[in-house]
């Protein structure tokens, strides 16, 4: 990276919210395949561009928390260590009793060390197997006019010791979910954790609901959203790290939640988000990373391909859902016309048979609707979820690149300072010399930190990707089985209907 001299990017707080479907990160990352880092500063080893090629699980002897074995619970002192001070700009300043404050990004070393303790938490939890079910239900309209909103009941059923009770529920609104995601994203995305994206906003859909239009399309919208919120929460809590996040626990348990106003698209925070997103897109296009770790290159390509394929599948299923709905409409129309025909017919037995035919067709129509719902809620939404998830995955890969960039920039700056110091040796300015030496020491620390950060995020991403791939297979298999069950059931129903109709048809004569 000897081309341009750049200052390291400022440590600003990014709110990488990916709740919208729009993705400015459209092009695949430009990664140059070259040999070792082209900045051979003295104390940087030649192959330091990637993580150590060892096992995914933490064997680092220098891990300070290797002895930590006690289970993390809600009130555990260890939990408090993970949080740092300072208010999070994402929340309106009413801090609840439990410390739910997000750490500022890019601060002291502490962050990285504490986050490496996540590895320990993850491994321990093998004992307490995942047993948790969240349901989002009872959508209820609160308020009137344009200030109205939908409140959803979030019920958690669990036997895990992380929670005080087995079953509890709270009321939440859509912006609460977005707020939760925003907090999780700001805490975890930049260190490589794949944070599940929240469901998308829909101004059109919500306006209909607000205005009080009680028709099928607004009911469908509410149901679609309810289902999406449920899937979102389940995905989030299935993540062993996110499950234990205090924001998540507060979301699930606490009866009062401060309103996350900065999730509104047109707020100042919203505008800040848009600006940051644009800046990131530009940055991303200009980062050329020397990827010496084939694993990352391969994975990035893999996710690019997967993205394309899933989008194709999604489009395909949407088409199928559309036709199914059309079939339902047509079947209902045919049923009506068959009924009219039956009424006009004066041959008694034929008339009765035709009326029966109309009834059978009505029932079949209902089957078509159920099947369309299965197509939609099982496949279409699953594929949509995964398309959005892959956006989050690509996001963490980008963060890794940025981390690398930061490290490289520190190295570059360090070298410059060293050169400057060397020059100063020959001048008689002891003050300046001392200043230079101090700066160099500070920068050396930064460079080391940068390297550690990079290695940590690389390690985390490897683990996350592995988990993601396993979850993906599980998810798809579960959905496919559910879908097949629905198909079998539909056919069984059809058989019943036809069996019942046959004697009626035979009785005509």
């Amino acid at each position: 990276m000897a081309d341009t001299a750049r200052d390291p990017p400022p440590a600003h707080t990014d709110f990488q919210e990916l709740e919208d479907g729009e993705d400015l990160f459209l092009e695949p990352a430009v990664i140059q395949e070259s040999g070792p880092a082209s900045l051979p500063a003295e104390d940087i080893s030649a192959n330091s561009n990637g993580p150590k090629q060892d096992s995914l699980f933490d064997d680092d002897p220098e891990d300070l928390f290797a002895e930590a074995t006690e289970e993390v619970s809600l009130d555990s002192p260890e939990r408090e260590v993970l949080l740092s001070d300072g208010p999070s700009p994402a929340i309106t300043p009413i801090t609840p009793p439990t410390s739910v404050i997000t750490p500022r990004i890019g601060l002291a070393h502490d962050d990285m060390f504490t986050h490496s303790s996540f590895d320990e938490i993850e491994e321990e939890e093998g004992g307490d197997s995942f047993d948790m079910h969240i349901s989002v239900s009872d959508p209820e309209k609160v308020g009137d006019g344009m200030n109205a909103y939908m409140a959803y009941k979030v019920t958690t059923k669990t036997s895990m010791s992380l929670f005080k009770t087995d079953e509890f529920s709270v009321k939440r609104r859509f912006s609460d979910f977005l707020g939760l995601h925003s907090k999780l994203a700001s805490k975890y995305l930049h260190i490589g954790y794949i944070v599940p994206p929240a469901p998308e906003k829909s101004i059109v859909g919500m306006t209909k609901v607000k205005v009080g239009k009680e028709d099928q399309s607004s009911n469908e919208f509410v149901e679609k959203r309810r289902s999406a919120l449920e899937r979102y929460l389940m995905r989030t809590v299935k993540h062993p790290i996110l499950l234990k996040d205090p924001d998540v626990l507060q979301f699930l348990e606490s009866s009062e939640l401060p309103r996350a106003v900065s999730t509104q698209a047109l707020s100042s925070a919203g505008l800040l988000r848009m600006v940051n997103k644009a800046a990131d897109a530009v940055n991303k296009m200009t980062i050329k990373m020397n990827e010496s770790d084939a694993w990352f290159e391969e994975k990035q390509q893999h996710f690019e391909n997967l993205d394309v394929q899933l989008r194709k599948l999604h489009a395909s299923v949407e088409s199928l859902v559309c036709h199914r709905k059309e079939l339902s409409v047509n079947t209902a129309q045919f049923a009506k016309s068959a009924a009219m025909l039956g009424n006009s017919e004066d041959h008694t037995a034929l008339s009765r048979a035709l009326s029966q035919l109309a009834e059978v067709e009505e029932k079949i129509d209902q089957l078509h609707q159920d099947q369309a719902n299965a197509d939609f809620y099982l496949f279409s939404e699953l594929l949509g979820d995964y398309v959005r998830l892959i956006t989050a995955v690509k996001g963490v890969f980008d963060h890794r690149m940025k981390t690398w960039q930061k490290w490289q920039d520190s190295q570059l700056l360090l070298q410059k300072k060293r050169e400057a110091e060397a020059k100063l040796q020959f001048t008689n300015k002891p003050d300046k010399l001392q200043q230079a030496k101090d700066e160099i020491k500070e920068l050396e620390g930064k460079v080391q930190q940068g390297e550690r950060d990079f290695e940590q995020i690389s390690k985390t991403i490897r683990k996350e990707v592995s988990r993601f791939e396993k979850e993906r297979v599980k998810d798809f298999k579960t959905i496919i089985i559910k879908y097949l069950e629905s198909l079998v059931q539909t056919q069984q129903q059809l058989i019943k209907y036809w069996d019942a109709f046959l004697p009626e048809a035979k009785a005509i004569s």
Partner: protein
Amino acid sequence: MMEEVKEVTPTLSVHAHNIKVTEVLKEGDTLTFLIVSQKLSGTGEYHVDRTYDDFEWLQQHLFSQEDVPGIQGVIFPPLPAKAQVNASAKVMKQLGFLGLEEWQPYCKALENFVQQIAAHSILCKNKALEIFLTSPDPPGRQRVRKNIFNRLSQAVVEMRKESHKDVDEFFQTERDHNLVLTGCTKTATERFLDVVLTEQKIAVACGHFSAALHLCVEQGEDPDKQAFSKACVKLSEVFNSMKKNMTSVAENNVNTLGVGLDLESRYQEAEKEMLFRRTCKLVELETARRNAEKAKPVKKAAMEEVKKVAETEFDHICGVAKQEIAQFHGVRVKMLQQALVQWCEKQLLTAKENADQFDQHLQAFRGMA
């Protein structure tokens, strides 16, 4: 060609009930149909090939039997609209079910047309039928003169006669009933066609999804990749099954209830035409009666003669019509029953087959997990 009415011997030398349209061939833009019929005497078959024009020729000859008393009271077996290779959307819409499934239903409809003529006590005597079924050469594409049977030539003003009040309650009831039934049947047929067309679209969509899933198969030894690929391949098979399922369901719909409703619809129209002809005759008769009454002594005798002829014709028509109607009622109920039973049996069979297949897929999937 005019045919004298022979009371006793039918002129048809083949069996009526097993006339078959066995094949349809595309020759450029034209469709040619192979018709096979069994000789009455001994064993032996007639194989002839005919185009749509030949069928029309036959129909025109039947229409033009002016010397057969009461011929206008006959419910003529309806000829389907002309089928074309690469037909326009309008033509396809008009053909409805008959345009689907590679012209198989169309062949059946033509077959039915010929069979009904051969089985009809009056129509089977027409020499044109014999020539149509047995002559090795196509009966000629000469255009037969137009006649009053061609509805299209009737002036719009004649349509008023359709609602002319009847003198006979039986016929008035029949006309009213026919009017309602024709409308209902047409609507039901069109809506059922919409159902079938959508089913076909779904089959295509399932096929696309199945193909798209194959693209998701990933190479590599990674166990997760392999598991996902396997799942995609299996799911692709499932959607292929769904495609076949939908295709079968649509086929069953077309071949049983679809063609049944189509035939019923066209026959209702044919009855409508007959009733209209009779009504027109009624109007003619009433006019003749009025004329005879009002006629000056000079013209009176002539007018009376006209009136007598009109009365005789009308009586003949009513006689034939009553028979035709009675027979029609019986035949159509039987036909619809058959269509409904076949439809139900086929769909039941398909549903059972599909249930089995989906169940197999389900078990296989559960075994995989």
